[in-house]
């Protein structure tokens, strides 16, 4: 047995190591976005430098980044909505009937590499002339959000007392009314968690957006790769874009961190 004090110090060190591992790249990204390109690549990295807003000026004034961000927002919100609209009833049904195989199936779909779907989808959507539209991006990103929504919500629906649902049945509710009036309001914290996770996953998803977006619908994450040129890369601008892209999920996570932690760990909605 390690003495308690030693164990506590060990614990702190672990946390510190994790924080460094997680935060160092983030800090590097944010700092770099305020440096001129020369400083970004400097070795060893410079902690003291003259900050500049040039990268952001370039990003917003000289490129379509604002429009790309708007595209990202449309796609992420649309896909999040789609994920919740399809995932929540599915999770409710699965929890109620206690059959888990449909949920497992969606998990397989989620685990499978996206490249697997990409070609068939490209062909399919080309034929109906949808490639390059918001629709196709929202639909394909649904493949990511539906399982996320479903699996996040499952424990919340599972925790609903069955008598509550049965009571609603006795009170004259058909299934859609039970979902809408009883189950969904009671899993509201779960909906928030699910919505955020869906949003973050689709916001950051690159592959489908790269292949299926058009010039007008290009998302921020795809557009940011324009800064990686052949031979020369505009590191500063790239880091500014990356910082902007990282911002919304970060803000969302901070806003609801308490929900997020308790939601991810327990899913209980008792009380």
């Amino acid at each position, binding site marked *: 047995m390690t003495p308690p004090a030693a164990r506590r110090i060990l614990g702190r060190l672990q946390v510190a190591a994790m924080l460094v591992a997680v935060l160092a790249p983030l800090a590097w990204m944010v700092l770099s976005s305020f440096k001129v390109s020369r400083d970004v690549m400097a070795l060893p990295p410079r902690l003291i430098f003259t900050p500049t807003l040039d990268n952001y000026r370039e990003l917003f004034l000289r490129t379509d980044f604002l429009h790309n961000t708007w595209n990202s927002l449309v796609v992420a919100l649309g896909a999040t909505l789609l994920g919740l609209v399809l995932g929540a009833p599915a999770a409710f049904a699965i929890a109620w009937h206690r059959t888990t195989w449909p949920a497992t199936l969606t998990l397989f779909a989620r685990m499978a590499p996206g490249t697997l779907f990409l070609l068939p989808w490209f062909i399919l959507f080309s034929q109906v002339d949808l490639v390059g539209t918001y629709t196709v991006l929202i639909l394909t990103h649904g493949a990511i959000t539906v399982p996320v929504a479903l699996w996040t919500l499952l424990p919340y629906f599972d925790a609903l007392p069955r008598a509550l649902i049965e*009571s609603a049945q006795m009170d004259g509710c058909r299934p859609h009314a039970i979902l809408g009036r009883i189950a969904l309001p009671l899993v509201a914290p779960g909906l928030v968690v699910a919505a955020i996770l869906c949003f973050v996953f689709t916001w950051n998803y690159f592959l489908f957006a790269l292949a299926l977006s058009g010039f007008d619908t290009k998302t921020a994450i795809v557009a940011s790769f324009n800064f990686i040129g052949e031979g020369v890369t505009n590191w500063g601008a790239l880091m500014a874009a990356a910082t902007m892209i990282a911002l919304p999920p970060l803000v969302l996570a901070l806003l609801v961190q308490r929900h997020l932690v308790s939601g991810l760990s327990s899913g209980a909605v008792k009380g």
Partner: protein
Amino acid sequence: MPALSIRNVVKRYGAAEVIRSLSFDVSPGEFIVFVGPSGCGKSTLLRMIAGLEDFQAGEVAIDGRVVNGLAPWQRDIAMVFQDYALYPHMSVAANIGFSLKMAGIDRKAVAAKVDRVAQVLQIGHLLDRKPKALSGGQRQRVAIGRAMVRDPKIFLFDEPLSNLDAKLRVDMRAEIKQLHQRLGATMIYVTHDQVEAMTLADRIVVLKEGRIEQIGTPSELYRAPASRFVASFIGSPAMNFVPVEVADGAITLPGGERIPTPSAHAGRASFGIRPEHLSLGGDGPALRGTISLVEPLGADTLVTIASGEERVLARLPGDVAPVPGEVVALTFDPGRGALFSVEGRRV
């Protein structure tokens, strides 16, 4: 026409037969209580009537209409659940009015009905609260109000009082009884508390392992139990059973005393006699033994006598004060006794 008619219903979970071909009718306005030990199928049967549980064979008819396969919301039945199942995100008023709202009744009419029900149940001052802010007894009232407001064909209750403390239970029991008298509605009530069953029921259905052991009024069950199981289940403290020999129209008690019996049974049997039918120092046949325990209850005193392995409990008037160790004879009227075969049937 019966308000409810159950015909040969069978419910299986996999291979386990939980309800075994069971039939009975309920008259309009009757208060029926299902009793039986844990796991005998009371809740299952109730839920089958409610439409919350499907079943493999038989028929359930409400007001003459077969409702097999109808969803709960198509049956016009209300149910009060054991743990109340109030909607936590709705106020008391919204909880009570929910079914009316679902039925598309306009807001004013709902509010009026909710108010009337709240008045009857004396929860008018709680209407704006959430269920979380209510005591157990108050929650129970809301749950009952939620059922009442709909004026359903049948009320179902699944152990509605089991989460309340003893005092509140007695109060609520009386209120449910008054409610029944006032509404005149058909009610089916599940409990494993025989006192609740006796006090509330017009007729009691005693269930055992998915079968009906006996149906009858409380006094029929008390006076003429069809089996040792019913005899031991109904009445408190429970009936005493002593091993006896029966031959040629006479019962031989453990002490050797013989009493006449109309029974044609012969051989070993159990003789049942209720604690309240034993007295100290009267006339007639007697069970003898040494007093091993005296439990004064105020109005009554419970006295246990031991004779070898056998224990016999008597409920005696509170003013007698027997002393442990004393050897006594507990006398009884042979007509009050009941004879059961080794298999537990009344003989």
